[in-house]
């Protein structure tokens, strides 16, 4: 294959651009939330004591708002690194579930492309993509790929611009505004819609109680205990519910 045909195979055709635009249009409502969230995360990183360079590295390469916001209070309280890794991993676990659902659409691509597509995935792309193509029989068409790109590329770009602006402008945000509280509120906004049935409520209440009591434990082990307790409570509540439904 000549270099030219190889290059033209990478460029989007007119049809590809139609699918990409469809993805972008579906993403627009989520754009404002992405920008506000990115800005808050940018400010919060600097306010938690990260240097401009460290915050920039974090934004560009971690690219996971909730994991970043989760890690900040831990970094500030000098928690051990293994705990920061564990907490970040747990908050990111949802991406494993998203990945398992999305992977059949992209399994035919080269490993480099799959690495890239997975790395800049987001919550929004999962919600939008699966509600559009979740039931489709066909898996892995060009339409899927370009629709996906139409969401993740503007998502990545708007997040990065907002987050870098937050890092630069954080110096002009006085400490008395307590803007780091906005980061906690952003996590709260992420949490509430997830709690949509009884089993999730059981998980939430159990994890909250253990987390509150467990503050006295060293190494923020209360966090680990709360996650384990919450998951077990959720699974138990779900089984109980199914048992009751079966009768």
């Amino acid at each position, binding site marked *: 294959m000549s270099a030219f045909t190889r290059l033209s195979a990478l460029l989007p055709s007119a049809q590809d651009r139609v699918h990409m635009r469809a993805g972008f249009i579906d993403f627009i409502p989520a754009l404002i939330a992405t920008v506000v969230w990115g800005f808050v995360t940018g400010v919060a990183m600097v306010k938690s004591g990260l240097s401009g360079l460290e915050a920039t590295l974090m934004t560009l390469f971690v690219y996971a708002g909730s994991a970043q916001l989760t890690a900040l209070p831990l970094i500030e309280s000098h928690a051990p690194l293994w705990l920061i890794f564990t907490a970040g*991993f747990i908050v990111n676990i949802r991406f494993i579930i998203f990945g398992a659902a999305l992977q059949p659409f992209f399994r035919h691509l080269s490993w480099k492309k799959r690495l890239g597509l*997975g790395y800049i995935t987001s919550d929004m792309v999962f919600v939008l993509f699966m509600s559009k193509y979740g039931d489709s029989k066909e898996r892995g068409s060009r339409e899927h790929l370009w629709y996906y790109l139409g969401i993740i590329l503007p998502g990545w770009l708007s997040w990065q611009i907002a987050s870098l602006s937050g890092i630069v402008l954080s110096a002009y945000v006085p400490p008395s505004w307590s803007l780091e509280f906005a980061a906690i509120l952003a996590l*709260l906004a992420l949490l*509430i819609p997830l709690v949509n049935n009884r089993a999730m409520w059981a998980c*939430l209440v159990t994890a*909250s109680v253990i*987390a509150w009591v467990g503050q006295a434990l060293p190494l923020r082990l209360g966090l680990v205990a709360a996650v384990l307790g919450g998951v077990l409570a959720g699974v138990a509540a779900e089984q109980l519910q199914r048992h009751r439904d079966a009768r």
Partner: protein
Amino acid sequence: MSDWQYDWYVLGAIALLVLCSLLTRSGYFMFGDLLPLTERMRRALRFAPVAALAAIIIPELLPWAYGDTPRLDIKALASLVAVLVFIRTRNAVWVIVAGMVSFWLIRAVMP
């Protein structure tokens, strides 16, 4: 911790978080054909984000330590307002706005 030690600590934390992102986001895209996730595991994992977020948020909103007299933190009150606003609007941006504004108001009013 001295300054340079702290810088290395932060860089180490960032490197580990990059690893988190890679493993959780690209892991399935890369090795999905080799790692079938059982239905039981999948169902249990659905609860992990809720538990983890609650475990991070609660100590920030309701901190306590031995010997402290119990008190209601302004942040807890402001969060309550934010939750109510979310239930009405279902909008993440309004949660942040309402929470911040009520935080500033309560702080200004309270002695």
